[in-house]
């Protein structure tokens, strides 16, 4: 069947079962938008800024098992999308971005709205390609979805010049992709897994350290089964929250810079560390030299060989898909019929319970002023711990990660790697599209929310009933905290002057806005918000301006060198 390039693009997206396409039209993609108009299978969501299109597609992918998809025009369309692409790249999120390009004859001529999209995005995509022939579109899009979703997932950009979308050719969608240069390892090496199982059985002080790879490979059930069978303590990273039930007593909470005392101490002093889909990044282990001071055996499961022995030398590397490797581990463990030394494990748990007794997450609540931790705890109670929670970046992100206990995977959406302020609302949008009936809360701050505030308009257009939990302290809170700790209280440019009245701003966009400044009103406001099933409610909580995130490991310090409260400063 002979189709135009634009028709082929849409047919490909239909074949890939793309439900929602987040995008923004422009000159170079007009043919594609014309074809979108003529069909109903792929539903387009018009955002107000291309950055939000990619964030929303990214959130759609994070909260489901599917690939997110975005469509932007050439030039500024692509440069606006770059932040979204880099965010997805750093967290290994499968997204396909279709970008328009100036006509092939104009490429390199400094044409209107021309930018070297493939060049600009190259360092922050898993792969990208410029299509110069209409006959290549179908194969390229098939390849893009395949590459985005397999191996270590990531964003793939397909750049299509305008004239190519107008040319015609015969269309057939490839059934499969075969690439000699791209064949990710899925199954782990059974010999390595055997070694790992033996190490785990012999461990006296074991510790499981699980990251975002568990979520991405949909292996939370397998991980939970294994950890339960072994009775080991476990810590889930910022990206891995929900990979093991956060309310389970075996969970020690989050590790790292703002991790719990017990998680960090256990990471440091265990004798066998089982890293599952985690990458020992600087926010998790702090100074690698300090981490290496204590001898321990490390098992590392990761689908990306380059993640292994990058920052920390490991003893048993296992390259493979986390889910497949855990399946094999469980199978081998059951085959041995053995269990770890119960006595040693009991002694280890006793030590952990001592660390736990420090109660590092305690904070002084107040009747006068709203404490941010209290808001998150109430949010958790009101939503029964079962909402989808997105966050922006900063103090509120850490409080949300610390005080909202995630029991299920794909419920917690945040920019862990790139730390992109502004993702919160677009993430909530993408998530709400993917889960129309479910409660979606966006935990944010007055600074982050303003970075994509225009999306309140998108939320109105599509009637997205998201709940915005704005922890408003009038400061770039995390910047202020660092300035307080490390820069002699010189709050250079971290005070947010001239803030809008957020409740009224929300109302101006046609939403519901609430301002809350008394601790006694927090729960009621949250209940009221979640009762409104069809409204976006913007909850502007006026919180304590001086509150800091504890515990804290300073950048470059060792994992156990924690500041537990203001008394340690």
């Amino acid at each position, binding site marked *: 069947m002979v189709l135009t390039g634009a028709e082929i693009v849409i047919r490909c997206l239909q074949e890939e079962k793309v439900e929602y396409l987040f995008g923004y039209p422009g000159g170079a993609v007009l043919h594609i938008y014309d074809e979108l108009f003529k069909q109903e299978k792929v539903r387009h969501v018009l955002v107000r800024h291309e950055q939000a299109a990619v964030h929303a597609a990214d959130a759609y992918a994070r909260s489901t098992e599917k690939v997110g998809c975005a469509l932007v025009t050439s030039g500024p369309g692509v440069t606006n999308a770059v932040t979204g692409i880099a965010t997805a790249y750093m967290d290994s999120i499968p997204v396909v971005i279709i970008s328009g390009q100036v006509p092939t004859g104009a490429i390199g001529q400094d044409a209107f709205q021309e930018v070297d999209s493939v060049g600009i995005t*190259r360092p922050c995509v*898993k792969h990208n390609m*410029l299509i110069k022939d209409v006959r290549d579109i179908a194969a390229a899009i098939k390849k893009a979805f395949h590459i985005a979703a397999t191996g270590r997932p990531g964003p793939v950009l397909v750049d299509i010049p305008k004239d190519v979308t107008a040319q015609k050719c015969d269309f057939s969608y490839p059934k499969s992709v075969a690439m*000699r*240069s*791209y064949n990710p390892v899925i199954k782990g090496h059974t010999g390595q897994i055997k070694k790992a199982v033996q190490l785990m059985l012999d461990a006296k002080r074991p510790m499981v350290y699980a990251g975002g790879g568990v979520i991405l490979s949909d292996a939370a059930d397998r991980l939970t089964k294994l950890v339960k069978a072994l009775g080991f303590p476990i810590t889930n990273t910022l990206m891995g929250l929900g990979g093991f039930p956060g309310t389970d007593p075996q969970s020690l909470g989050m590790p790292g810079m703002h991790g719990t005392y017990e998680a960090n101490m256990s990471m440091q002093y265990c004798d066998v560390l089982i890293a599952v889909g985690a990458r020992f990044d600087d926010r998790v282990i702090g100074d690698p030299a300090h981490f290496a001071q204590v001898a321990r055996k490390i098992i590392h499961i990761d689908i*990306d060989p380059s993640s292994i022995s*990058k920052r920390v030398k490991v003893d048993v590397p296992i390259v493979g898909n986390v889910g497949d490797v855990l399946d094999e581990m469980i199978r081998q463990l059951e085959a041995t019929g053995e269990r770890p030394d119960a006595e040693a494990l009991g002694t280890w748990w006793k030590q952990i319970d001592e660390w736990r007794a420090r109660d590092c997450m305690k904070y002084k609540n107040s009747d006068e002023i709203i404490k941010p931790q209290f808001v998150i705890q109430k949010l958790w109670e009101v939503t029964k711990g079962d909402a989808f929670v997105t966050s922006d970046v900063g103090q509120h992100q850490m409080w949300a990660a610390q005080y909202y206990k995630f029991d299920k995977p794909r419920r917690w959406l945040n920019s862990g790697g790139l730390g992109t302020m502004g993702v919160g609302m677009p993430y909530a949008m993408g998530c709400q599209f993917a889960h129309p009936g479910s409660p979606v809360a966006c935990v944010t701050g007055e600074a982050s929310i303003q970075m994509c505030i225009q999306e309140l308009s998108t939320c109105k257009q599509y009637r997205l009933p998201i709940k915005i939990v704005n922890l408003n302290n009038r400061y770039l809170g995390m910047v202020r905290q660092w300035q307080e700790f490390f820069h002699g209280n010189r709050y250079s440019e971290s005070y947010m002057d001239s803030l809008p009245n957020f409740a009224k701003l929300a109302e101006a966009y046609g939403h519901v806005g609430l301002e809350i400044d008394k601790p006694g009103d927090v729960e009621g406001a949250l209940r009221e918000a979640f009762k409104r099933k069809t409204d976006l409610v913007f909850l502007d909580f006026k919180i304590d301006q001086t509150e800091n995130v504890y515990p804290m490991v300073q950048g470059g310090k060792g994992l156990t060198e924690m500041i537990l409260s203001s008394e340690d400063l």
Partner: protein
Amino acid sequence: MRHVISLLLENEAGALSRVSNMFSARGYNIESLTVAPTEDPSMSRMTIVSIGSDDVVEQITKQLNKLVEVVKVVDLSEAAHIERELMLIKVRATGKDREEMKRMADIFRGRIVDVTESTYVMELTGSATKLDSFIEAIDRSLILETVRTGVSGIGRGDRILRI
């Protein structure tokens, strides 16, 4: 430590930038880089000389393997291999220097491939150190121009890099 990394990659637009981009983005160093299509025109062979600790070179090979267009990577310097580089060098060749240049070319088994009344262009192949020695051996002031290809490498005997 100096390493000679050899790779096969798809002969596609942008593949070279993807490789060089990875080096600069991650702060790895490139001493030289050569690339050309193989007997199979859909595939290119690249030789990269880089300097780094074993850990860094391990990361380099892993990161190279991660690039979607890269088919295979080996660190040739892990075992017996051959390195060759080609140099074209233009020198002033007048008076007594003319005879001397000819003699030096013979000693280094180079060939004179272009002759004018006052200049020679010589072609030399060999390891990078041999070419360095040639430059050291002749009078610096007589060198007009040098062009070097960078190192190409291949494993000895049964060490074969192909798909």
